[in-house]
């Protein structure tokens, strides 16, 4: 029993320090259609252009296929399709994101944006008026001076 107690204690401690040190979170931002999305930089592995994608017949519509990232098989997801954003062409840029315990996953995106430092306390709920994409995969929004940054719920996107 004592062991369990100590474990809890440690977790509490960790949370304390992390909040104190990290006042801001670094976000990688990118564009798909008219939307600006954000993913915590800690989850992004790399950005890659024009990697050969091998289609996997019979897979879901939003899965473009698989690709070879230095010997690892990486699944490529058409994020626009997953988020139900209406796009004329399939984007070509690969944003490769870690997937805990599994091989990484790549989202194809249109254009990479700035690296942003955001303050977690200023994160807001997803507004009702947001339209043109399926909101269930957006965790929070963050008001930038000129645009609304949509923070993606990576875990949900990957698992569902």
């Amino acid at each position, binding site marked *: 029993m004592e062991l369990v107690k100590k474990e809890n204690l440690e977790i509490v401690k960790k949370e304390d320090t992390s909040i104190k040190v990290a006042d801001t979170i670094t976000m990688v931002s990118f564009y798909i259609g008219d939307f600006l999305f954000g993913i915590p930089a800690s989850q992004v592995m790399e950005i890659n252009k024009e990697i*050969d994608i091998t289609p996997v017949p019979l897979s879901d519509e939003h899965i473009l296929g698989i690709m070879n990232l230095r010997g690892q098989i990486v699944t490529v997801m058409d994020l626009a399709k997953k988020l139900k954003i209406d796009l004329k062409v399939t984007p070509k840029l690969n944003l490769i994101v870690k997937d805990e315990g599994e091989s990484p996953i790549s989202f194809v995106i249109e254009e990479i944006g700035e690296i942003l430092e955001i303050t977690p306390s200023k994160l807001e709920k997803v507004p009702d008026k947001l339209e043109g994409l399926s909101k269930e995969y957006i965790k929070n929004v963050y008001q930038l001076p000129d645009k609304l940054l949509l923070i993606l719920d990576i875990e949900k996107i990957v698992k569902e």
Partner: protein
Amino acid sequence: MNFDEDILQDFLVEAKEGISKLEEGFIELEKDPKKIGVLKELFRTMHSLKGASGFFGFKTLESIAHFSEDILSKLRDGLIEPEEDVVDILLKAVDYIKYIISYIEENKVEPVEDKILDFLVELSNFNEKLRKKVQEKPKERIGEEKIEEKLEEKKEEAEKKIEEKIEEKKEVKLVKEVKEEKEEAPLSPHVELAETHIKVDVKLLDQLMNLAGELVLARNRVVQLSQKTMDEELTRSVQILSMITTEMQETIMKTRMQPIGSIFNKFPRIVRDLAKALGKKVNLHLEGTETELDRSIIEAIKDPLTHLIRNAIDHGIETPEERVMLGKPEEGNLILRAYQEGGQVVIEIDDDGGGIDIEKIKKKAVEKGFMSFEEVERASEKELLNLIFKPGFSTAETVTQLSGRGVGMDVVKANIEKLGGSIEINTIRGKGTNIKIKIPLTLAIIPALIVTSGDYRYAIPQVNLKELVNVDPDKDLLKVGNTEFYRLRGEIIPVLRLSEVLKVNGKSEEQRNLVILNTGERFIGLLVDRIFASEEIVVKPLGRWFKNIPIYSGATIMGDGKLALILDVVGLSQFVGISIEEIEKTYEGAGIKIKTSAQETIILLLFDVGEERFAIPIALISRLDKIKANEIKISGGKEIIIYRDEVVPVIRLENYLPLKGMPLQESYNVLFFTERGKTCGILCTNIVGTLETTPEIEEGIYTQPGILGHRIINGKTTLFIDIYKIIEMYDPDWFIVKVEKEKVVKRILLAEDSPFFRGMIKNYLVGAGYEVETTENGKEALNRLFSGKFDLIITDLEMPEMDGFELIKEVRASPDYKNIPIIVVTSLAGEDVRRKVLDLGANAYEVKLNREKLLEEIGRLLS
């Protein structure tokens, strides 16, 4: 008490190691109770377990370890004998320790359960009983005994306290420490072994594997570039890099290999417990424990093996009484054997029990509706045995607690097939059962056939591959409903078009390549665009998005860095719309004969050399492959190729037979012929296909050394080649075995009605130095036998006038020849036939085309 998670982990790891040491030790001890070394080791292990659990405050664990240690110390000092009840309770203690450890692993605390406390009481009482027994014995070492007694008293006190779950234990510990010091003293000094092994995280090894694979690809690119620049120094460096890379990859592969002993060693305990529970006596032999396998396979093979061993003891081996009645030794033998064979690991489970009752299977098959009465009568022994692997089929009359735990043989088979392996049963009623499991050495790298559909490549694991056929889809495929079928030597095989399964859009090129696949249950044909060569591929798992697509089992990275999906043959077979049974019904109704008659048939491989067509039994060919013309090199005046790191001489038939020969070609097909580890290749223009047919040939016009005869097949004259003669013409020493020829030439009488086999067998017997007389049936053979002197008879079974069975009977009935050795050669492979001919008095039974085995058998019988 506070302690770190890490330390607890260390404790758990150590405890688990300890447990397996204990288990092995106890079994060894039972075999040889005098092994003092084992006892000392057991004592030490138990002692450190006790110490560690005391440190963590796992009191129940500590107590169990303590009492066990106590019993062990008495054993070690020779105060008591390792009788069955002693070993039993110690093993039980190990079981509880195991249980507690796994509970701690999950919950971080000790379990509080009545059954554990009950056992603790039992253990403590047992210990007490032993103590009294020891005291009753005449005392030899009085001085020591006195101290011992005092200690025992104090310990008794302590034991009571534990039973009452009183936490205060300081006193006990003190006493124990005193005692331990005394006990440790007479032990031999612990020999320090140099550390040759370290523990490495498997993930790290997997990552290394990955990187090595990548390095190979990068190396390939560098090699290509260096070839372009033609810089000598660069080329040399690249060569070195290349060599090192290959070596490194191989070494890393090896790190994943583990001896199969790591699971085999768990079986002595299981067998012991099971045999005891069932009142049987079983002697388990482990063979080939050092055979290495990929660790992931080792893990996966454990459960199926356990199940098979359970079956062998439960259903196979008889009770001691039964065995004695049958004239067998009381103790049943169970052999667990592993060895490597041709890139695969074979595991055999061999028992000398009662064997499987085929009649019972037949009865059950009808009862449970697996087969109709007529089908059962027609079915071969193999087909009947395979029923065991069907879901819902079990031969045990009563499901016992041990082997009937809801997992059947169907699960065993499925699990083995999942590993890319196969399973086979052979049984002889009254003599025993042999189960043979073949599994690949590693799951990570498998040989696969690369095919295409549209622009993409797909890999098909070689284990599922039966054969390749070139078809004309319009002519050769039949359609029933929406499903297409192909008739392969009388067997109806459903055909899938890969492009349709994959729903690839657009009309792809005409598909003429039919890949016949074996799902383990049945055959299916897969029509693909193109077929590439066979390659060794590294299997990589697909992400979670593809788990519900049954047709893939992974992906692989090809030499050019592109990806290919690996097809799952069982998954593909789900796309077959109609069952074969329905088709057979349709066709039976239309009066089309599906099954070929029981007539003797062989499968021929047809091939062209220049404009001539040839045939050879496919069983004689070890491999088919394509080579480029520039791969043929001249060495020592002979043409050779380097094939799979081996120098293989190539033979051009036109050099030995009056042929026009081949025009120059960019690439050639090669038929490989292997015997006794020697391989040669026969060059041909192209492979026409295979054909199952009777071995009828016409002799005369074309007959000459190297040609057995001819026949018109598909409107073309086809020459049947005698490969043994041709190779002998190429190299007269090829078949000569380094055994001194006997002075007296042995005479063999050969009875064989097929001129094809007659010619071939005669030629290779003569080549091996025997004198051979040929006859065309049993009657002729019998007449010849009575008029000449022979040392051995070789006979076919199916012959006109008098068949082989009759001939054996006649020969054995005649007083002059009843002892002449008889070898039966046949193409009818089957256990029942074998048994029949051996019962009739034949000395051996061989398959016709297996020259090597036949010669070996002749040698044995004539020596």
